[in-house]
């Protein structure tokens, strides 16, 4: 059941109405049933995997909580890690590793040792496993007491608005909300609907429109070169942002209708002034997850023996894993390594570059400096997205090699510009950036809310019909569902 499907638009109001009609005592049960139903609409049998993860982590956390010895606590934690990551490896990475080894053997002229499995990747597995794992690690570290209510813990793992593509919630934030549900609040309801509308705008009007042009180039890499390739990759940056942040807005809005606050996952990442800044603004729930549970778990940082070289190594490893989290493909691994290396380069050159900026006088013009920073970050992001979007590593290399060959690019560009679709898409990107910037400074929602009812309602109704009229309503899947 996609957020942009008719089924969801029927399902959600029913759940919300029932939620506020039944007794507070049973709300968790309603949401749990709704969440499992939501997941089963995709593939019913895979719900067993969520139930299994839930049971393992529930009992492991209880054991960790009761066990006084650290050594034994660690054994339980390892059990949880093995089960969860084993499941992830089995469903997501097994074929990738087998295929890579087969290719290696093939290159050497030897017989391929592994046969591949035909397994359908369970939707959202990377999200709910990471969410569940963060809970066991938090219990192990003593940040969280074990949850004793199995049903409420099961709801924490499977809460439908964020089940299939995040945000990856922490138990310290979501579980208390499940325990103390808020009463009906009309302001929350209205603000939830507004957030959902903004998400639909980003997904239907921008992301799915840009997706047509991106696919046009990326599905046929041998046919394109020069400007269309660069333009398609730049558009993909906006498509990815609008698709994923649009999804997050709908998820957060849906949860807010029932009084739940999910974490902010994006903070205008496309105006980041450095890659470090970018990763502080992009998919925040994942980057903070890796920071807290991977980077900080590595030796030399945890033990406060700060040795730069090793920090940099750990950073690259963390980003490699983060790339691999996105998908079992070399393209994602390279995407991660690229970002890891560039973050190290940024860190190493930060001090030596400061006097250069001074000498050039750039520091006196903060807007120019910010502009340079945004251009630099967006360029690097675009470069890395060649790997992120390409279907295969060879496609990525082909497109990269053809991107700077500007011969005969007119026809592709003409096709892309046909029907003014692209021009409209670019106008919408500008509108999005301007609105986000304005909202960050002046809180647009409050501004509109303070206007007389006639203006307010005109704006809301206008926005709804704008989405309906200009949205691409073919039900494109959300990109992050595949992860």
């Amino acid at each position, binding site marked *: 059941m996609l957020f942009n*499907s*008719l*089924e969801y638009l029927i399902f959600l109001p029913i759940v919300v109405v029932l939620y506020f009609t039944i007794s507070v005592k049973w709300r968790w049960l309603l949401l749990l049933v709704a969440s499992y139903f939501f997941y089963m609409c995709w593939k019913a049998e895979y719900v067993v995997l969520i139930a299994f993860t839930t049971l393992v982590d529930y009992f492991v956390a209880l054991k960790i909580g009761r066990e006084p010895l650290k050594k034994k606590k660690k054994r339980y934690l390892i059990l949880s890690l093995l089960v969860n990551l084993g499941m992830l490896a089995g469903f997501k990475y097994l074929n990738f590793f087998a295929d890579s080894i087969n290719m290696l053997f093939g290159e050497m002229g030897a017989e391929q040792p592994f046969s591949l499995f035909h397994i359908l990747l369970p939707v959202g597995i990377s999200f709910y496993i990471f969410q569940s794992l963060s809970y066991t690690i938090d219990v192990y570290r003593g940040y969280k007491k074990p949850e004793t209510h199995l049903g409420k813990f099961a709801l924490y793992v499977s809460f439908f608005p964020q089940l299939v593509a995040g945000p990856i919630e922490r138990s310290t934030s979501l579980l208390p909300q499940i325990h103390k549900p808020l009463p*009906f609040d*009309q302001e929350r309801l209205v603000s939830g609907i507004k957030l959902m509308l903004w998400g639909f705008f980003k997904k239907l009007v921008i992301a799915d429109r840009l997706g047509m042009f991106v696919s046009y180039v990326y*599905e*046929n890499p041998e*046919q394109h070169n020069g400007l269309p390739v660069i333009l398609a990759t730049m558009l993909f940056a906006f498509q990815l942002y609008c698709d994923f942040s649009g999804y997050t807005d709908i998820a957060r809005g849906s949860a807010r209708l029932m009084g739940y606050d999910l974490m902010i996952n994006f903070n205008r990442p496309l105006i980041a002034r450095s890659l470090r800044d970018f990763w502080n603004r992009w998919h925040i729930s994942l980057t903070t997850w890796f920071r807290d549970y991977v980077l900080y778990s590595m030796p030399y940082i945890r033990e406060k023996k700060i040795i730069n070289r090793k920090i940099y190594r750990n950073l690259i490893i963390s980003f490699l894993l983060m790339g691999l989290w996105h998908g079992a493909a070399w393209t994602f691994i390279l995407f991660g390594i690229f970002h890891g290396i560039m973050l190290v380069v940024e860190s190493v050159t930060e001090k030596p570059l400061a006097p250069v900026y001074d000498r050039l006088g750039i520091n006196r013009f903060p807007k120019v400096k910010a502009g340079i920073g945004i251009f630099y970050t967006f360029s690097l992001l675009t470069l890395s997205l060649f790997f992120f979007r390409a279907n295969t590593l060879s496609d990525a290399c082909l497109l990269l090699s053809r991107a700077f060959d500007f011969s*005969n690019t*007119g*026809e*592709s560009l003409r*096709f892309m510009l046909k*029907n003014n679709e692209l021009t409209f898409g670019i106008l919408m990107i500008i509108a999005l950036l301007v609105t986000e910037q304005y909202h960050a400074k002046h809180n647009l929602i409050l501004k509109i809310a303070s206007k007389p009812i006639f203006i307010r*309602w005109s704006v*809301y*109704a206008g926005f*709804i*019909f704008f989405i*309906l*009229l*200009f*949205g*691409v*309503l*073919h*039900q494109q899947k959300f990109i992050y569902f595949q992860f």
Partner: protein
Amino acid sequence: MTGKFAKRALLFIALLLLINVALDQAFKAFSVHNILNRRMDEQFASYNDTLKYLSLGNSHNCINTYILENSFNYGSPSENYIQSYYKLKHILEKTDKKPEYLLLQADISTYGPKIAERYEYNSYWINYINYPELARIKGDREVLTKWLEGKFFSYAGNYKDIQLSIVYRMKIRTLEMHNGYRPHRDYRNFADEPNRKKLAWDKANLFSTRGAYFDPTIKAYFKMMLQLCQDYNVRVYLIRYPVSQEFYAEETKIVPSVLLYSEVEAIASGFSSYQGMLDYHSMFFGHPEYFFDPDHLNVKGSDLFTRQLAIDLKQRQSGSFTEQTGK
């Protein structure tokens, strides 16, 4: 929930519904495609002559009804076999006009999933398509959203149609249409295009999908259409319309046409209604001047093609047809 909030919410919803009804009705009345399709329906309703040939298909269908006597060209833009089936069913079951022959489009792109997924102009097709049946055959409940779109939200996602409707508002009043045929493709010539190969590649990739050449839903409706014709004693010719050489070259890089047509033949020959395939795809190879774009004939091309079709149909029916005609 306070009473004031509930009242306001209801009022706002009522306002949205009101605007929606206004937009829906305006779109249905003024959409250029709706106007053209409605005019075609009106012409068909008032068609009083013997209906020997009824042609169905999408914009590739360029049969000139001035040239092919006793014919009605009921093809419409983006039409696929699903839509053709329901339109034919409507004609056979609900009107007194029974064609002797059905000329059914059978181009390479006719059978692919991209054409199968094009559910456009639902506010027109809602008059014909049984959406619940389609959802069942396709195994996809989401098709029902198309019913909803056609019934209540005809404008949704159709801003391009509105744009066209504004641009062509004046032209459409004087647009010539004769028994469904519109001789309008004369303002561009494919021969003048500087990069025909690229245009052909773009068009071929727009309609065909690598690795999937016969969509299961299209296959199901193809069989249903042949069965329907058999039940009503309507004879069927499959027609492959002329395409440019460049387009065919690109299309056959994507679709294994030999495999596709052997499957099509195997299905069709199982029905007594099937009379054979008339293949004109290469009729104008090396003659881009007869094309409007890579896969549509212009007015002159349509005339030449229809003349040949008329001769071939006559010969077929007199039993003297030879395969070299139509080339």
